């Protein structure tokens, strides 16, 4: 219903659609989430001057995936008319990524 809910969900979907993103997470002591009536989206923070997306990757190397996440989120924000900058935080790398050959990109 609320715009925050819609935007956070859209950001989440777009981020998960990027190959190499395992899931969104908030592993820090302070939870990163967007709160709205009836629920929250963990790993997406819309409340600041910068939109934050916290991800766990399952593919190495990190930079290309991170920049694709950045692009995807930017697109969503642009579509919603939100001019804020994006910050992608890689919270963790899943074990799968380390087992696979880094160059192979499973």
């Amino acid at each position, binding site marked *: 219903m609320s715009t925050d809910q819609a935007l956070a969900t859209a950001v989440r979907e777009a981020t998960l659609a990027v190959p190499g993103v395992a899931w969104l997470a908030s592993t820090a002591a*302070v939870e990163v989430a967007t*709160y*709205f*009536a009836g629920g929250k989206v963990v790993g997406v923070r819309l*409340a*600041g001057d910068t939109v934050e997306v916290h991800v766990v990757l399952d593919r190495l190397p990190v930079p290309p995936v991170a920049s694709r996440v950045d692009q995807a989120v930017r697109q969503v924000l642009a579509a919603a008319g939100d001019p804020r900058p994006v910050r992608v935080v890689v919270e963790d790398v899943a074990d799968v990524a380390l087992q696979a050959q880094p160059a192979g990109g499973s």
Partner: protein
Amino acid sequence: MTDTGAKVPNRGNPTGSGGQAGSAGSPGTASTSPRATGESPGGTRLVTDMGKTQISEAVVAKVAGYAAREIPGVHSMGAGMARRMGQLRSLVPGGVDASRQGVSVEVGEREAAIDLDLVTYYGQNIVDVSEAVRRNVFDRVQTMTGLQVVEVNINVDDVYVEGEGNGQNGGEDQSQPRVQ
């Protein structure tokens, strides 16, 4: 994480007024023409040529109370002793409605001001949570009652720590022996 604290004070203002800036500015001008027609936003349709609609404080308080609780970061509502007494009182038949716990409102003909007392969870960004609460209360009260919400003041009264009864560190020492 560290820059959150710095960002947040700036953030409080733009959203507090910014979220509703378009309509929040208008009631001042709207109230100069008391018998406004239904066109202007917020509250004006409550006072018409054919009569007034009056919404009691109880209604606004109830709506605001439920709206605040809809946000997952809100543990409970009410300040200190009143919160504990309220939990008792709500068990008594015919007692005070628990949904109004921690809510105080002022309601005029077309405007409402709301004060909330919240308890949040430890580990959450309190500013983010209260921002979400404020926005939801604004939305719900304005859409359900038609009153123009002038302000939503939030007083975070306490932080709920899980396992607080066992001590400050969540009682991990007691729950599991360190040596086996």
